[in-house]
């Protein structure tokens, strides 16, 4: 099977890979690049566990072909912390116990980071609708929503 050669930027690093035409960005992240922080919960764009940011836009990595990453900038959960400095959302999720099993957590963190970049002062309803594409089966969302609202307030205070 002929492979496609792709040059892209992942978490700030120029990255090259070969992929099959039908492979998704999620396949390549997980199976070729060992970036297993993005999870496959459904493979059909319904659960959001594979949420990544491509050129500033939130996408499900399972719905994007890897070949489409050519020339783009991809941000994954692995790029969210700066070394051992956690992003304020990551820190708040820990402090407020906004995760149980943790498998949806990477997608939810990536999605909410993107939300706060667009809207630093979201209402509870806006957070809930923004996260409506990120399924969590453990928490009932309560502590997640509180952690996001709290982080947004902290970040506004710090800005």
């Amino acid at each position, binding site marked *: *099977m002929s492979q496609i050669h792709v040059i892209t930027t992942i978490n700030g690093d120029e990255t090259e890979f070969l992929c*099959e035409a*039908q*492979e998704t960005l999620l*396949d390549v992240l*997980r*199976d070729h690049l060992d*970036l*297993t*922080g*993005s*999870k*496959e*919960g*459904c*493979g*059909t764009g*319904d*659960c959001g*566990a594979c949420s990544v940011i491509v050129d500033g836009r939130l996408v499900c990595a399972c719905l994007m072909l890897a070949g489409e990453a050519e020339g783009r900038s991809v941000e*994954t*959960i*692995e790029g*969210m*912390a700066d070394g051992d400095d*956690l992003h304020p959302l*990551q820190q708040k*999720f*820990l*402090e*407020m*116990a906004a*995760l*149980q*099993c*943790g*498998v*949806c*957590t*990477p997608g939810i*963190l990536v999605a909410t980071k993107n939300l706060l970049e667009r809207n630093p002062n979201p209402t509870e*309803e806006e*957070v*809930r*609708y923004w*996260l*409506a*594409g*990120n*399924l*969590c*089966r*453990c*928490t*009932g*969302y*309560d*502590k997640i*929503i*509180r952690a996001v609202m709290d982080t947004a307030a902290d970040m506004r205070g710090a800005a």
Partner: protein
Amino acid sequence: MPKDEYQSRDFRIVGTRPVRPDGIDKVTGKARYGADMTAPGMLWGAILRSPHAHARIKSIDTSAAEAMKGVKAVITRADFTYQPESASLADVLDNCMAGEKARYDGHAVAAVAATSKSIARAALKAIKVDYGVLPHVTDVDEAMKPDAPVIEAGRVQENVPEGYSENVTGRSQYGHGDPEAGFEKADLVIERHFTTAATHQGYIEPNACLAQLGADGQGEIWVCTQGHYMVRNTCAGVLGLDAGMLRVTASEIGGGFGGKTHVWMEPTALVLSRKAGKPVKLVLSRDEVFRATGPTASSSIDVKIGMKKDGSITGATATYRLQAGAYPGSIAFLSAMCGFAPYDLKHVRTEGYEVMTNRPKAAAYRAPGAPMAAYPVESVIDELCQKLDLDPLETRLKNAAREGTKASYGPTYPAIGLEATLKAAQSHPHWIAPLGENQGRGVACGFWFNFGGDTCVSLMVNPDGTVSLSEGNPDIGGSRASMSMMAAEELGVDLDQVRTVIADTASLGQNEVTDGSRVTFAVGLATIKAARHAIQIMKERAAMTWGIDPEAVDWRDGAAHPAGPNAGKFPPMTIKEIAAIASNTGGPIAGHHEVTAEGAGVSFATHMVDTETDPETGQVKVLRYTVFQDAGKAVHPDYVEGQFQGGAAQGIGWAINEEYIYGEDGRLQNPGFLDYRIPVASDLPMIEPVILEIPNPGHPYGVRGVGETSIVPPLAAIANAVSRSSNVRLTSLPMSPPKVLAAMKGT
């Protein structure tokens, strides 16, 4: 030496809310779940599944698949050369790989291992299966009829009366008194028929494993499971291997809720690996998770309750028919035990029927059997309250089981917490908050047993005085945090001095699955006792150093202190000082505890919910939700609250959205998260958790399991709220908009 049973005490660490030790890995994407592991030379596995609900497998031609480049193994049932003796293990085997016939849409019939996912998928398409389609039945009531297609003959237990098809494999009956005489005394008797749909646990991480099995019978499995010892024992039993030759390591687990207390495809991965001579990774798709891993049972239920005008219940009966799916053994007996457990009844009788159908084998789902047991009972009690103009909380209090009550399932209750949850609900501001148009408030109670079971813990005091704790239960919601907290509490050291890991099956003795809300109770109990064992050894070491009797040494604040006549004669020796000279005083220091924990202590909850019903669309919106539950002692309150909130959310999904939908062809029509809709963030309000602490006498810290009870009350609580907001009584779950609208329009 502290006593084994509960003693009231002031806690230093237990009851606080520290950051969990596995947290950073989980917020940075480093935590390794089932599908995140690879091995050198690894192949990708894939499973071919039956498109028919019920079909004889006449032949399977794998030759074209085997000839494909990159395909390293193709297996069918013929490659499972060992036939287990026990019926239950034979069922597991047949469910993992169909033998003579496919019993449900999605039943595995063949599997491949190949060098890439795409080759594996292509190879599945090259396998030719010749099916002889058989009549099927997916509805529980239809399956009971004498002329129903029989899934497997010869499995009927001695307790089943005549007159049913052979799909009815078991019956259990509980109760006492004479319900018919009780109904005579009632001012109002209501009898209703209810149905609930099958719902899936809906864990976000699909089942996944990485397996290796050599010709010498030695194997390794990396797997997301609620119990890696269960995986080891079951795989060994199904394949005729020695359990000691299989080493199973539990990955991080992305949710389970009972669905990962079973083996679905791990033996398949092992057989593929044995045939190919390489490690095989097998990851189910979401479609496969829905079609072939067990949802909970759907049910058909009749409930009859009599009540006096003063609210006292005079008699009660319930018949629960639960579908087990394609193999015998369901949970109707648990429904029969749990349905009326919250109430003090003179006359009560329940029956449970286990029914096979052409659906995937039903699995445990959070308090298995209890949600569908409570739903009709709590609905009818609420309807009686409405018709007799009674307060639903007062009426429940009037009938509430308490210490000394003979439970509907037989025993006399010790101290229990139901009244406390009802009284907390009565005094909560939620109860008197105003409601708007089309809005209603519902309440319901729930009961669950909780378990203990086989448990092993080892606690090592390292040379620098830090502590390594090994336990054998996958951490599904923060249990490593709780174990570290209990160990640090007991040892008198700082929390950051203890690290807890989940040991593999070769490193610790047998452990029961992470189920039955058992871990914080049973593993916590073993952790405390392992710590006490280590303390005893450290006291002996200090005594030896001081040249005094070990009985004359106290342990407090993480140090040995000379006591009695020697008090003050020597400066205390800290755990670090004792650890540093361990080699000189008898060798490394480790405490351990192995126990089959009993006496878990039953659990009760009361839930309160406000809903609004849209009169145009029939959509039910949950506006406000409060959970009142007894935790015994909340070790880490954040994660106790999380269990309350998560269980409530799952119950809300069960009540309003979630259902397995089967077509006339017996195929599952909604095997994906788009059409099987679990609650999303915008569906839910905040869920307020109210933790009550009525200590469990069977645990040194008073801990009671909390994980499951929270899914029991929501089904009825919401049905009751909907009834009060829309003035219709729905008796079929889920209460989806079309059903609600039809009921409101009286059609």
